[in-house]
């Protein structure tokens, strides 16, 4: 059992090793490829903080709690400049996702695509994301960013039930720059979809299907419609109520 760890990051060569192991696993399905990844071996890492602060055995019920834990730990341990230097460092976020890899993959039974563990940023931006920005899919970095931005209200973006699945709200909202950067979209999410416990109601991000008539009021459709709205309106100046009204049927508020 490991006790508390220093904050570390992988050496670039080791991040590359992780990349290759995951890539091969996704085609070979051989669990040994994943168990060979060792984030606890100091030879594979560089130190970021000398304090022993990270509990690798901590269990999280979902990614909201993981993001909150890591955010509070980083902001309580690192200086402003150090935080800035790790924000877009793929070696740091890959290391963190490997520390909690078993949880994030449900004991290796649910291994998602590469970008969930190695963020598509820096030298991995094009290698993993191609011409698309998919940095929001990272299993640790995005929860931390969301908690930093919205605090407890960030619960609404997460899958409440488990930690190994991201959920479709992040994909439908955070993948779109115009939605992600608009605080009124966040307000609309709260008004329209939030349950009493702060998480989203079931079906919030159902994929819209015209034939079946499902997903009429889902965030998947909201993201697409908001982009359209910006052709005609100054979207960032519309408040949540105006957004609800202009987005049209499906986005009415029950207030």
């Amino acid at each position, binding site marked *: 059992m490991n006790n508390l760890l220093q904050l570390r990051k992988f050496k670039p060569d080791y991040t590359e090793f992780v990349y290759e192991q995951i890539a091969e696993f996704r085609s070979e399905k051989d669990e040994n490829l994943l168990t060979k990844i060792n984030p606890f071996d100091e030879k594979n890492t560089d130190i970021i903080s000398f304090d022993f602060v990270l509990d690798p055995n901590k269990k999280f019920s979902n990614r909201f709690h993981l993001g909150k834990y890591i955010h509070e730990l980083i902001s309580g341990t690192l200086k402003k400049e150090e935080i800035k230097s790790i924000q877009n460092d793929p070696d740091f976020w890959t290391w963190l996702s490997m520390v909690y890899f078993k949880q994030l993959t449900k004991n290796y039974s649910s291994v998602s695509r590469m970008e969930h563990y190695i963020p598509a940023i820096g030298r991995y931006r094009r290698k993993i994301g191609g011409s698309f*920005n998919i940095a929001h899919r990272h299993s640790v970095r995005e929860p931390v960013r969301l908690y930093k931005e919205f605090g407890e209200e960030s619960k609404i973006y997460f899958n409440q039930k488990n930690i190994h699945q991201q959920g479709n709200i992040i994909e439908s909202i955070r993948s779109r720059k115009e939605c992600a*950067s608009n605080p009124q979209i966040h307000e609309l999410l709260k008004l329209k979809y939030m349950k009493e416990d702060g998480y989203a109601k079931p079906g919030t991000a159902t994929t819209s299907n*015209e034939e079946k*008539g499902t*997903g009429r009021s889902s965030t998947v459709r909201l993201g697409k419609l908001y982009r*359209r709205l910006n*052709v*005609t*309106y100054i979207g960032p100046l*519309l408040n949540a109520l105006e957004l609800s009204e202009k987005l049209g049927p499906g986005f009415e508020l029950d207030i």
Partner: protein
Amino acid sequence: MFKSSAIQKTTPIPISLIPQKGFTWEIDEAKNVLKIIDIDPQYLIDLDPNQFSFCVYGWDKEPKEFLFYEDLQSISFPLELNLKELKFGEIVGRAYFRLRIFDKNTKQIIRQSKSFTMTPETNQGSLLNLSISPIGNKIAELELDEDEGPNIKISSNFQIKDEKIEPVHLKQIALSDPIFGCSFWPAALKQIFESAIDNYENDWAQDWLRLSNNLFPGHLEQDRNDKLKPIDGKESFNLIITNIVDKWIEEFGFDQKLFNQLFEEGDLT
């Protein structure tokens, strides 16, 4: 029934155009201040200043956005937008802006310009976008985006102990040093031309292919959509990229400058 797709953008309310020649603007080399110098009064005079606002909307690739707006009744030109104060520092990739005029009550856009790349005047018209980015102790780095084209990043954080080499000096080296011109640029150009062929349907790629056709004609032809594409296929074109780059070096005189630096200015002899 409802529309699930946003592929088709609709413009239900007519939006008139503020043409390129309808306003003047500039941005400094460090991309800190975007200045809207003036706007032709004909695009404002017919509007009720109590009803409409003027807006500058900008974005980059990160994605990051800013929105500056002011009522028409209180606005005065030149407008100087401090991008850092608008939380638009550390631009990632290319940055763009457009002007908009909208109804204050409905937030509806009634007039707007096309989008413009935030490029200093010295670089406008150039195929290569230069941007300042924290890439560490290297002079420059090529970023190649298949959708938007090439971008050369000049280091903003080249630092030895407590001493920093300012981006303006690094930019000078990138643009005029013959050793750099005969080493970094040929490698970068090779990648750019290869990518231009792979993505020949994109506008940026067509610009580069036009340049290649001017430098080393006879290897490209227009397809039915008037797009330049290789006559003998992609593989053959890749073989002549070295000739195109040679011509480019010759055009900018980097080879002659290098020769002069080494042999006539006595650096090597």
